[in-house]
């Protein structure tokens, strides 16, 4: 499996993890330690996921503990996927060190945005940024899977009412939607 395929399959693994409901951290678990990530890598993941889904009127990825979801997904992934992810993460940190003289987590919001803008795939990724772009696509997918399968993401942010027992299914009642 090449690096790109490994990253792609990791995103699918994470999506499956979110769908299988093995994950949902709604409150801080005391004494949590990552299974895969080092504390320094974890800090980078916290900052990256929060940059992807930040706190707005509702809490963001950091408050939803999406970093733990990422760690859990990595723990369940194959070695090739895990390595590809960690290499991508190292690429981001190294790039930040080179450009800003500090890690992604320590960089200013403007610096973070400037890097992410270059590696967010809009179809015009420079060759030198391609490893970053492949990684960013993956962590973005994992952040979306992880965040929106929490109570914060699904209920607070997206407004799902969570009801699983209805006497009737009302369906669409808008006159303008009827044929």
């Amino acid at each position, binding site marked *: 499996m090449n690096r790109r395929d490994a990253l792609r399959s990791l*995103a699918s693994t994470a*999506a499956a993890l*979110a*769908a299988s*409901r*093995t*994950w*949902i*951290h*709604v409150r801080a678990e005391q004494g949590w330690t990552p299974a895969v990530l080092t504390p320094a890598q974890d800090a980078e993941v916290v900052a990256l996921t929060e*940059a*992807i*889904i*930040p706190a*707005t009127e509702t809490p*963001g990825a950091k408050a939803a503990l999406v970093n733990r979801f990422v760690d859990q997904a990595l723990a369940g992934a194959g070695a090739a996927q895990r390595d590809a992810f960690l290499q991508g993460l190292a690429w981001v940190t190294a790039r930040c060190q080179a450009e800003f003289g500090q890690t992604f987590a320590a960089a200013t919001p403007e610096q973070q*945005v400037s890097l*992410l803008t270059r590696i*967010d*795939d*809009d179809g015009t990724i420079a060759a030198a940024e391609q490893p970053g772009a492949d990684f960013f*696509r993956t962590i*973005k*997918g994992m952040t*979306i*899977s992880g*965040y*929106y*399968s*929490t*109570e914060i*993401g*699904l209920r607070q*942010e*997206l*407004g*799902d*009412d*969570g*009801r*699983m*027992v*209805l*006497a009737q*299914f*009302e*369906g*669409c009642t*808008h006159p303008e*939607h*009827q*044929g």
Partner: protein
Amino acid sequence: MQIISSPKVYPVIVIGSGASGGMAAWNLTRQGIEVLLLDAGDKFDRSTYWTHVTPWEARERRARGERPPQFFLDRNESPYETPAGRPFDLTRVWGHGGKTNVWGRVSLRLSDVNLKEPARDGWEIPWPIAYADIAPYYDKVDQLIGVCGGDDDSDILPGSRYHLPPPAPRCAERLIQKGARTLDIPFVPTRRANRTRSVRGSIPCHYCGNCGAGCDVAAFFCSADHLLPEALATKKLEIRSNAVVARILTDANGLASGVQYFDRKTGSEQQVRGKVIVVGASCVDSTRILLNSTSRTHPNGLGNGSDVIGRYLCEQVRFHANGYLPALAGGPTRNDRGIGGEHLYMPRFNHRAGHTRDYLRGFGAQMWSTGASASGAHGGSEKIPGFGATLKREIKRRHPAWFEIHPYGEVLPYADNRITVDPAKPDRFGVPTIRIDYTIRDNERKMLAHMSDTVEEIVKAAGGVFVNYTRGDVDGNGTAIHEHGTCRMGDDPKRSALNAFNRMHDVRNVYVVDGSAFPTATEKNPTLTILALAWRATDHLADDMRRGTL
């Protein structure tokens, strides 16, 4: 190894307890006929399902070491081979009720458009039966299992007087329907075996939308919930679990005399004797059993003098398109869980006047996962460009507006789309494993182009925007889980294995009642028809047994 053989001769042995085997056991026992039912797995325990487990509870359960039930068979337990570059994704459930524990529940009647088409277009053999032969059984099945649906009735999709009320469409489904109508392509209320009303005292559907986890209150039809208990209540049914059938045994005259199976847990070989064998192990496993049942009289597999068994494997070709409807974006999030699938279905239309096609047969389309997702952001959200507050805002805006269209097209039967057994590759019991060699061809590629055109036109007419859709991308072979054709029925014993009542031409005390009996795949989901034909076949068998004419 010691072979354990019981002296008892059962009037009927049924292999498999899903839609086909479960129906056979139910229909025979209620007519007073004693049945031994063999299933390759155990009973699933509904009280352990995670149907309504919230993500919060799920986490705590996992922490306690609990897991949801694993319905699907691990491929390694019963391996199969495919040629390099030609994968086939086989999905199997070994356990009481088989795939009906987690099936998609789409319950569409075949029509004479489907059944008479092979005779008209000349591709392979005709069906030996017409709609009028199955219709009374469709009526009975609808009443027995509970199928929701509308009051529509058309040449391609015959109606039913016994449909339960259909669930109201979701907003996004309405807009797709409205767009398609301008193209003269109708969408009609879906027909799924969800009990939107109580059926004989059962608990009705409560619209949690999580049918794929198994229904913990049995509000959709499952053989293990709705057929086997009634059959057991007759005291005429004996079920043996974890009985992995290897072969049907024959006597000196070439008639079936019993079944050889291996205990899934202990590996011990067992033999049971029966006067009649009804095979309903699902298309691929039934085919494996028949091809492995060789003898001097049946060197090519049981009842396979015609060499058709294993050939003509056909299912459906499909792809998945999704996107969002700007007209719904930014609106309130509704609870779109519903019956865990689409509420509107696009029946086949290409046979009608005004439509042309450069291929045989046709396609319909489902729309599952349309509307607001209940398990997180829709998967297409990952394709939204950007990050930060802009991304978060756009994911929320699109949340109520997603649509999905999933067209299913009929794959023609081809003699060399084929299941074979390989004695050089035995399974853990020493029984030859199967090899599946299956491809789609020109007819399917032309149909796929029309399927793509249709989806593109509908989405355009509905004002939708594609997000995950690449013209030409096709889902993997086998993923529709609608295998057919490898033990087909027909009037000509040289070209078919079964007669019009699912009885083997060559072996008069063997019936094959699952999807393998279908001469064509059609564009429709097969289970309703499997139930109807298994009922019809076992009525025929029961009549013969009563008259002593078997």
